[in-house]
């Protein structure tokens, strides 16, 4: 289902150009608004749909196998931490869904350098950052012994 852009909603802000993982959202030369230049490289990931501040981008299922008349639209509300979906079937049935997208404020992740620096001895062992605490188990990081591995049949 490749994306397309509504003429009356797009104001050419470029957020979709910035976000598209496939580099297929670009700017039309006549209208200076967005368009999908390569629908056959569109994964329907909806990154552009979600990123558009005007909700100007929608999807129409791939013509290879999706008949017309359907609609799957999303409203991602970052500040609320939600994404809402409205699915409309070709025959008019409708389904609505709402999911959380994050439980913590945006920008709130503690950067790795904000933790106490590892001690020199830590570099030589197998523990990664925040271990063994982050594993929340007794006995420290599990390990094998070399002689636990036996060469296979051949």
């Amino acid at each position: 289902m490749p994306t397309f852009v509504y003429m009356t909603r797009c104001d050419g802000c470029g957020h979709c150009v910035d976000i598209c993982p496939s580099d297929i959202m670009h700017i039309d030369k006549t209208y200076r608004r967005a368009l999908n230049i390569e629908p056959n490289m569109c994964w329907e990931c909806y990154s552009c749909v979600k990123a558009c501040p005007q909700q100007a981008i929608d999807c129409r299922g791939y013509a290879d196998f999706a008949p017309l008349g359907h609609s799957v639209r999303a409203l991602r509300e970052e500040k609320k931490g939600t994404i809402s979906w409205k699915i409309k079937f070709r025959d008019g049935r409708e389904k609505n869904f709402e999911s959380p997208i994050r439980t913590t404020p945006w920008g709130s992740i503690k950067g790795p350098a904000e933790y106490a620096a590892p001690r020199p001895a830590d570099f030589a062992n197998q523990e990664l950052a925040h271990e063994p605490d982050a594993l929340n188990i007794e006995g420290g990081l599990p390990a094998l012994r070399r002689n636990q591995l036996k060469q296979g049949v051949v």
Partner: protein
Amino acid sequence: MGLFGGTKTVHVDADILVIGGGMAGCGATYESRYWGRDLKIVCVEKANIERSGAVAQGLYAINCYMGMQWGENQPEDHVRYARNDLMGLVREDLGYDIARHVDGTVHKFEEWGLPMMRDPKTGRYQREGKWQIMIHGESYKPIVAEAARKAATEVYNRIMITHLLMDHKANRVSGAVGFNVRSGDFYVFRAKAVIVAAGGASHIFKPRAVGEGMGRTWYAPWSSASAYALPIEVGAKMTQMENRIVLTRFKDGYGPVGAYFLHLKTYTQNGYGEEYEKRWYEDTKALVGEYVDHHPVPTCLRNHALLKEVAAGRGPIRMVTKEAFQDPHKETVGWENFLGMTIGQAVVWASQNIDPKHTNPELTTSEPYVMGSHATCSGAWASGPEDYAPSEYQWGYNRMMTVDGLFGAGDTIGGTAHKFSSGSFTEGRIAAKAAVRYVMEKGREAPQVSEQEVRDLQKTIYQPLENYRVGRNEIVAGTVSPSYLLPIHGLQRLEKIMDEYVGGISTNYMTNGKLLSRGLELLAMLKEDMSHMGAEDLHQLQRVWELQHRLRASESVTHHTLFRQETRWPGYYYRGDFMKLDDQNWHCFTLSRYDRKTGEWAMEKAPVYHIID
């Protein structure tokens, strides 16, 4: 472009260069900073790390979580599981290494804000299956990208890395080059250690849909095999490149079936409403012997039964959902499973009026993909953990390839099946700590970059723009030129060659030595044609280099498929000339090494080590 359309060269010196800002790349960036407080950590990404990689649209489950804190699984259990699914051939040392760390990664994800579903009875993460837990992962990638941005000295978006640079005095990587997809500027990265965390290979076999539908691949269309082409080109050894994966998924949309099978407890039937898998037990046993009795049934063997049933004329295969979907909670899970992971499947069903409450939807097998993090494990041959890896698997730093200073994580690394998103991020972390140690131990040694090589590469990288600009003068207009090919032309040729000769859908995944040899001939001609690619603009130039990477990976896949003279994974592909599994001769890894000077591929076997029992 610059003010007047020109481009410049940008030099970036880094201690650690992470190529690729997906799950593995973000993990590598994060961990590099933890261990290398004063190091210059640079992450470079072809798109925008906010949504790049295979997790762009989100995930609905984390498929690799032990649950050690609740005694649910131990790391060796996961190794046995992955080994079983891959018919015995995995790097158990690497797999154990990821499995022992991955729980910590998942706990950090939750801490960072990823909404985890919880089992209402036990309060633990809601299990989808033995290894899988369920999440509301629409923003999985933005959350992980935030962690990476907080760690990196600099994140470079929209820069496609086309080549690694080597220090020619030693077998050591010294950096990478590429171009900015927006400004066209040429970028030269110098680094003391490089972690390749790029994408595996989609679009090397012809997909089932060939129009707009080409975009609806199971694995992201922007995974252009850079994870393989970059190391292959500089002579790193690769392993198991023949181990391509074919997936049984919902028809056309390739939507995920995991939650359906495991959580909703659905099952499959043929077109007549019959259970069919057991029907093919003897047939499968004749091919693989006692492997057919393993539990759970390996993924490829389940594919095999489906393929046989369809070939016998009793398709289409359907998943029985009508029962499960009567439960409103399960219905919600079923739909949200797509919306959080593969929105396209919801679109397909909406467009065809398929409501799983009233219709049992069709399943199909996909075209083949080559990657390293799923029920498959193609990729670079890497050194294992120092504390227990056997000597054949260990040569210094964890996750370092056979090129000094060149590390890998995620789809890049071979032999580590079933790591998925959390395992890839974890592997990034593992590689990062090792890379930091490597940088510190190498001291002040700056990598040597050959100015001549950089200049030559610059010319090579931009050549397609020049080919188009000049060649365009020959024709009036249109896409057909006798002197240059557009990237889509090359891609379609590649996909057709691989499809017809290397076991794609049109041959029902069948190939043999003769077909493979002919495939190599045709790939060789395509390789020659690559110097005649024409790119109209920077976007097309990116497509050219994606094709170049895909082609290099395809050559590797074909050589490996030719080398392994058995059918190890029926249901993924078949060697018509060696139809049976042959543990006597082929219970081993295949390794290859490409010599770019001679264009030759050297193949060899490597031993497989198993955890006892």
